[in-house]
Each structure stands twice: as structure tokens, then as C-alpha cells.
């Protein structure tokens, strides 16, 4: 009698559990991905989801960082290949449905984890939605961006945006030139090269505009017209700088070859 009672109770509990799981699964399915096509270079929650599911299936080996880089790209292509989908490296409707079907068990796992850790679990989820990585232009690092931003901000914070892009472009043009040192720090800290270095303004904290300008220059924009020098005619003291062939003026700066 007692055993029967426990059994029936547990059956009811189990079925309830199952029902809950199913209904939640339905929910999960709808909200797992937004309806965007995810492509290489994308950042955000959808990429997290994609990486987690590809990792669950063993295609992706990296960290779940929310940035669609090369590892994610190859993982996705391998998945598409294995599942007979067109191999294009784009997570579109069909690919996402296939992936969701293949990882039916994935969310259940995750939810149990959440249930086990209680409130902390949802917290961890929220944290996972913040991108832990970032895209950077090929051949540069975050510290490079920071260093050039410092120089650009110190040199030209009062200038219009393209003037700041142009100053960043001059630094990058010098990097390519045989006449200047071959590293970013070498170019920036070359004695006498930048007034902001000489008077310490390079150590001011750059704002986001300066950083955006640096990213634009790194990504290939050069408003300076391939300049190697620039100067402010109001404050320039060296007569030599006036002898450089002038390309154009942006804001207060004259850009020269």
C-alpha cells in the first residue's frame, strides 16, 4: 500500500517533469536562435549558441566566446558537410534547424545544470551572453589598437573624425615605409616624431572616437592620401617640415609626403 502510493506519486511526478521538459524544450527551440543568418565575423548571443551546440557535437573545440572566427567557421563547415548540407559556412535557416535537431539533448543538459545551481545558473547564462572575445584587424592586436589610440588621442583629439583616422593612417604608413622603424612602438616612440609623445599627452586616456578612428585606419581607410608626415601650421617650429610636399589639409593638420 505504502509502496504503491510512492510509486503512483513518483509516476505523477515523473510525467509532470517530462511535460515540463517538453514544454520547455519547445520554448528553447523557438528562442535558441534569432532568425538571422549567422556569418563569419558576427558577434553576439547567436554565435554563443552556435559555438555551444557545435561544441556539444564535438565539431568545435575552442572557447565559447561569442565571436565567429576561423575555428567556428571550420566547425560549422564540417557540420554542414557531415549532415549533407551545402557547405557555405553560413548558419542559415536549414543549417540552424539541422543543428537544433542534432543537439536536442543539449539544452536539457544545460537546464539541469541551471536547476542544480539555482539562481547562480541564470547568472552564469547572462555572463555567457557577453562576448568574451573581439574581432581585430588581421595582423594587429588589442594592445596595438590601444597604443595607436593613445597616440591619436594625444595628437589630434580636437580634430574631426577623419582627421583622427588620417593621423592613425600616417602611423600605419610609416610602418610600411623603409624610412621609419618597422614596429608600431618604434614608430610612435621615435624621438621627435610626435609632440604628444614628447609632452606626455600620449598617456591621456583615449576616448572611443580615437579608437574607432584607429580601427578604420587598420581596416584600410587612409584619408591622408598616403602621407608620412603631418604638422599643424600654427604651432610647427621646424622649417624643414614646410619643405615636405603637401598633399592636403584636414582640420588643422597639413598632411605631407
Amino acid at each position, binding site marked *: 500500500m505504502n509502496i504503491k502510493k510512492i510509486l503512483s506519486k513518483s509516476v505523477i511526478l515523473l510525467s509532470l517533469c517530462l511535460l515540463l521538459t517538453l514544454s520547455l524544450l519547445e520554448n528553447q527551440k523557438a528562442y535558441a536562435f534569432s532568425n*538571422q*543568418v*549567422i*556569418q*563569419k*565575423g*558576427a*558577434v*553576439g548571443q547567436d554565435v554563443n549558441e552556435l559555438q555551444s551546440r557545435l561544441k556539444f557535437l564535438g565539431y568545435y573545440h*575552442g*572557447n565559447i*566566446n561569442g*565571436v565567429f572566427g*576561423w575555428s567556428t567557421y*571550420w566547425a560549422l*563547415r564540417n557540420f554542414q558537410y557531415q549532415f549533407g548540407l551545402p557547405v557555405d559556412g*553560413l548558419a542559415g535557416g536549414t543549417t540552424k534547424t539541422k543543428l537544433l535537431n542534432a543537439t536536442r539533448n543539449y539544452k536539457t543538459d544545460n537546464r539541469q545544470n541551471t536547476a542544480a545551481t539555482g539562481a547562480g545558473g541564470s547568472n552564469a547564462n547572462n555572463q555567457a551572453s557577453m*562576448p*568574451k*572575445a*573581439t*574581432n581585430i*584587424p588581421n595582423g594587429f*592586436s*588589442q*594592445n596595438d589598437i590601444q597604443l595607436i589610440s593613445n597616440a591619436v588621442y594625444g595628437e589630434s583629439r580636437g580634430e*574631426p*573624425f*577623419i582627421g583622427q583616422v588620417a593621423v592613425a593612417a600616417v602611423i600605419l604608413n610609416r610602418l*610600411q615605409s*623603409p*624610412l*621609419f*622603424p618597422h614596429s608600431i612602438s*618604434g*614608430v610612435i616612440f*621615435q*624621438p*621627435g616624431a610626435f609632440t604628444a609623445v*614628447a609632452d606626455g599627452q600620449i598617456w591621456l586616456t583615449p576616448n572611443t572616437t580615437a579608437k574607432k578612428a584607429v580601427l*578604420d585606419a587598420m*581596416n*584600410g*581607410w*587612409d*584619408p591622408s*592620401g*598616403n602621407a608620412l608626415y603631418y604638422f599643424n601650421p600654427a604651432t610647427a*617650429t621646424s*622649417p*624643414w*617640415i614646410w619643405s615636405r*610636399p*603637401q*598633399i*592636403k*589639409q584636414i582640420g588643422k593638420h*597639413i598632411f*605631407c*609626403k
Partner: protein
Amino acid sequence: MLRGIFIAGLSIVIAGTAYWGYQEHREKNAILLNAENNYQRAFHDLSYQISALHDKIGATLAMNSRQSQSPALTEVWRISSQAHSDVGQLPLTLLPFNKTEDFLSNIGNFSYRTAVRNLDKEPLTDKEYKTLNVLYKQSGDIKNELQNVQHMVLKNNLRWMDVEMALASGKETSDNTIIDGFKTVEKTVSSYDQSFFGPTNMNIKQKDENFKNVKGKRISSKSAVRIAKKYMNIDGNVLEKVTENGKGSDYGFYSISFRDTKTNHEANMDITKKGGYPIWFIHSRSVASQKISLNDANTKAAVFLQNAGFKNMDLYESAQYDSIGVFDFVTKVDNIRIYPEAIKVKVALDNGEIIGFSAEEYMKIHHFRKLPVPAITKDQAKAKINPHLKIMEEREAIFLNNLNQEVFCYEFLGTIGEDTYRIFINAKNGMEEDVQKLKNTETVL
């Protein structure tokens, strides 16, 4: 009594101030000396390296066996790079010292190209021997001039800090030994003909293609404004400003800037005078949070290029920076990617507007070309690749090698472990032209 206290207090204050001032003075001198020593080290090292360079080139000339020539040329390359780095640490930015730096970089290129070559199969040609001979003589002259300056510096206790002050203020000082010395070095170098370096002397010069492939008539500044408005999709109330390029530019262009009278946003664009082609534009506005996906933005960028008349553009790189999407396109003809013909498009992910465009590389290089035919098969090219690389993607491509020449290649994308590589195998001779490690995500620090 009161006077006594006053005098005592005052003398304590004076003594304190004097002591403090003395400390400050000592500290300042220590720091100045430190900076001065850094300059001195770079300068004396430069002199040493140039003389080592001279000796090493001489040794290379005297060598008969090819086995020892390769390491010797590598050494020349290393020393020239060291000397170049020394120059970068001296306050010479405001001094015309370009020719000497050019010279060092040319020696570096020349010795590198010859050192990495298989000298057993392809020994130094007569012309290259001649070049080496000239380099030997030239480095000897520079060495002598520099040693003269060095001697004067040591004899007269000259300070680089004074040079820096003199250069920065633009004032002539009484003792210009160092500046004059470096000017003489510069003169010595420029008296030589630079043409003997042959195909290795490329550097930045190749970059200045000056839009010579661009066709069309010179346009007026009015039509430039019209073209700019069309590209940047500008209507409504704007203040416009057009300026022409300065005299020093290698090519003619108009810079057009618009300022929206309501929003105060600025939009800038450069257009070639010849033919009115777009070089680049940037809309300077803040971008709100992301509303459209990177993929939708990609479509918009592709449509924009199509409408602007850029045909056969193929996306090869896309990346999202906050709520801005940046897309790299290259020309693709008959399934061959032409990497030098690159165009970049920047899309705001809040409303899908094209807020940036750069076709500088494309405009400088784009021309009708006879498409090459590979001399080796793709499988032959594959055999040249490191067997550890797992090949994931393959195609034919034209790209600029490190001599700045366009080469026709098989391109392979592959992975070793978690790393992705792009490898170019010359489709004519099977040479591994370039291996690039691809990395464009980084963990947030």
C-alpha cells in the same frame, strides 16, 4: 627675541628650499643624463653597426664558396636591420636622413633576397657582384663620415640633447657638428645612383601606382560634388565644401565634405580628378545599437557595390566591431580571386546605411588583365604543402608577393590544430610564395 625667532625660522625655510632645490636639480640632471645616454648608445651603436656592415660585405665579396656566402649575406641583413633600428632611436626625425635609411633598407632587401636563395643552384650573377661592390664602397663612405662625427662628438663632449633642442626649436646653434655631420652622410649617400639595386629595390615605391589605370576626362568640382552626393546618398540641407589636392600629391583628387545642417554629421569623400572615381568616403556619425544582422549588412554592401558599378566582387572577409560591420571584397574573374583589387565597405548595423567605403587599392591596380593559365595542376601544388596542414578550402588567386609582384597562385586555406593558415603556391613553378597565419579574434583582455 621675536626677530631672533623670525631669522631662525627664515633661515630654516631658506635652507630647506635650497636643499629641496638641490635635490630637484640633481634629479633633473640624472634624468637628462639618462636620456642623453640612451641617445649616445644608439649613436655609437649605429657607427659600430655600419662599420660591421662594411666589413661583412667585404668578407662576402672575398668569399669563394657558396656555402659560406649565404650565412654571410644573412649576417649583412641582420646588421642592416640593427643599424636601421638604431637610426629610429635617434632624434633625427626632423633632419633629412631619408637617403641613408633608404640605403640601409635597400641593403637589407638585397642581402635577404640573395641569402634565402639557393646559391648552389643560382649563384650570384655578375650584376649582383657589381651591386655588392658598390654597396661595399658606399657603406665604407658612410662608415668614414660617421666615424668623423663620432670622433668630434667624443673629442668635444657633444650632447645629443642639445641636438634635439636645436632641431625642435628650429634655431641654428653655434655648434652644429652633429647635424652637419649627418647632413654630410646624407649627401654622401645621395651622390650614388640608386638604380643598380634592380628588382629588389621596391619598397613603398611600388605602392604609388598613382591611379594610372584609371581612365576618363578631368571632371569639374561641381560634378565631383554631384558624384559624392550620389555615392554617399546625401540629400537635404547640407553645407558643402570642396578642396583640391595639394601640390605634393602623386595624383589629382577632390576632397568633398558635407555637413548636415540639422544633425551636424559630417561626411567626407575623396574623388579622382581624372574620371571622377571614388577613392574613399566616411560618414562620421555615431551608430546606435545593432538592429540588423551582419549577413543582412553584407547583402547591403554587395548591392551598394553592384549599383556603384563594381562588377564581380567577391566577399572574402567580414567582421563586426560593436555595431559596425566591415566587409572586404576582392575581384573574382573566372573563379580567380584577384587580391590586390580590394574594396572595403563599412555598414552601420543600426539601420544598414553604408557609412564607409574605400576603393583605393582597387582603383590603383584594377586593369584588364589576360587571365593566366596554370603550369602545374592543383594536385601538384597540393603536394608542395606541409602534410600536417588539413586543407579546408582551395581556389586560384592572384596576389602580391613580398617583392610586390603579382603572382598567379593556388590558394589553400587549412588548419593545423586550432590554427588557420592561408598558403599560396605559385601556379607556374610550384614555389611556396607565402604562408599567412590567420588570426582575427582575440580574447578580451
